[in-house]
């Protein structure tokens, strides 16, 4: 009981958020979207008490809340919208909001690359498939969630564990002491290199987040990971070509 009162600031918004999403998940018989929306807003407001960052730059905080709020809102709308086309569009809006968050945190290349890859290519492909498959409107089974209780409970358990882990580390509410923050993440000693190609990080402040620094880090510190990811993608491409039916076999 003591635990639940101590962590009520996180438990209440999580429970409210789960209720909102579970209420709003598409069903055959529609429910009041206004009620669900109100519960969702209440959940976000309850979470606000915990996550309020220390007062800083007003413009930056405003941008953060704008983009973060838009990302959460459009994410919720994406799950709860009955129409798959609108769901894909909300996904695009959510991606764009996250790109805004990247931009606020001075990662312009990551932001632009995410827009190109996700909003510009992947969601367009989703839309392509949805429009190709559903010329005459969605089928009955597309109008309702298959496992509403299971899916919403599990996803909120995951979200809750993430939030609790972050809170244990003192990362989200800004209340942890400096010492606790300094010890929360494992960091390399200055002399230890990730691998033999690693170069010491630059000290030029203007270069932080620039493409030059990003590229140097990717192809030195993370060289093996980049090569591995490239190989996996290549294998996936070959696999896709192998699985796709050939013209001579009568389809496509």
């Amino acid at each position, binding site marked *: 009981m003591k635990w639940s009162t101590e962590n009520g600031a996180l438990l209440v918004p999580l429970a409210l958020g789960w209720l909102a999403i579970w209420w709003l998940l598409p069903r055959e018989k529609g429910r009041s979207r206004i009620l669900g929306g109100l519960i969702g807003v209440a959940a976000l407001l309850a979470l606000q008490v915990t996550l309020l960052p220390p007062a800083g730059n007003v413009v930056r905080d405003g941008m953060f809340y704008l983009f973060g709020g838009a990302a959460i809102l459009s994410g919720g709308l994406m799950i709860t919208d009955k129409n798959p086309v609108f769901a894909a569009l909300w996904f695009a809006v959510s991606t764009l909001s996250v790109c805004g968050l990247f931009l606020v945190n001075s990662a312009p290349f990551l932001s*632009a690359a995410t827009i190109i890859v996700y909003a510009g*290519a992947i969601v367009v492909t989703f839309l392509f498939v949805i429009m190709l498959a559903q010329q005459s409107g969605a089928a009955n089974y597309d109008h309702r969630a298959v496992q509403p209780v299971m899916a919403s409970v599990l996803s909120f358990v995951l979200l809750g564990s993430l939030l609790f882990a972050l809170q244990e580390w003192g990362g989200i509410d800004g209340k942890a002491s400096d010492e606790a923050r300094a010890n929360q993440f494992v960091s390399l000693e200055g002399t230890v290199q990730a691998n033999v190609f690693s170069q010491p990080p630059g000290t030029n402040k203007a270069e932080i987040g620039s493409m030059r620094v990003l590229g140097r880090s990717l192809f030195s510190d993370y060289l093996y990971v980049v090569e591995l990811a490239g190989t996996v993608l290549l294998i996936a491409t070959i696999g896709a070509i192998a699985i796709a039916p050939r013209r001579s076999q009568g389809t496509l």
Partner: protein
Amino acid sequence: MLNSLVNFFPEPVRPYVMPILAIVIVLNVNLGVCSYLILLERKLSAWMQDRHGPNRVGPFGLFQPVADMLKLLLKEDVIPGHVNKVLFVLAPGISVFTTFLAFAVVPFGPVPENLSPGDGQFPFIIAPGIDLGIVFIFAIGSLAVYGIILGGWASNNKYSALGCLRASAQVVSYEIPLGMSVVGLALLNHSMSIEKILMNQATNGLPGWNIWVQPLACVIFFIAAMAEAQRLPFDLAECEQELIGGWHTEYSAMKWGLFFLAEYTHVITISFLTIILFFGGWQFPLIAEIDSAYTGATVVKVLVLLTKVFGVIIVIQMLRWTIPRFRFDQLMSLAWKGLIPLAMVNVLLVMIVKQFDLHTLWLLPLSIAAFVAAGLMGTQSSRPFARKAVPVVEDHGHGGHHAHAH
């Protein structure tokens, strides 16, 4: 002239007035130029087809754009039944918004080298100092397809749906060669900033133009950009002969006009980018060098840039009546089997030259050789990567399977 304009505003407000002035100039010039580009396109089409073209409104039909605009504004704005109203209205807005946003990082004159937010110089670019200018344009350009997709889908019309399906496949495919064609450019110029690439060429004069070292990249970029803009010969999404009007079949009046405003703005952006990335921007021997400081040099530089851009626009409009429209499978083959491998070869050549410290002009013969080799491969066998045709066996046992498959 420009100085008197800048000095007209008192010192303290200049840092705020100048960007607004740049935005106002870009927006208004763009809108005006778009309407006259339509007239130019109609006149050029007429000239190429040996007819007169519009010649009734005003001398030589010069007031035709005004009449067109009045018609578009006054015409009944029909929203058909059974359309998805929100997306139907939103789609033209997205098209115009994204194409105008892309223009924010395109310099339209000599950008001052020591530009900082505090001093009140006229910037000649809406958003100066963006380190990732080209990537930003590609990111915004990849969003432009949403206007077409949403417009086509919301129209609740089979032809529109076909058009938007074609558009989405086409844009996703052509983004790859478009992005890869400038990788070599970025490697050679050590930057992805459009201003820096422009300054590099301007400092080196005529021999420093990127076209001498990246001719192949220029061709790939131009083709892929035309495909992104849905211009003929790549206007499969619109395709009047098969799809009536494709994705804009159901649109009328000013919503239709907005789609075309977006298309022409896209053409202008492409032309600016081609000139700035490959043909030296505002630089021209003798009259517009980096150190030319005579009275009115800035105006001459702007005029040189605009003249070059106008040339590219003329080329784009003449291509419309020169090359017939692609078939859809030809379109996809061109991107995946032609442009993407060529762009990869181009990047590889740049890397070889950089790695072995060769003179960058080696890239000129190497690129031409790669281009000729690709052309030979394309012409010597009509479908170089096709599987050998299976001979049709007459008996109805085993071999008939293949015959029916086609």
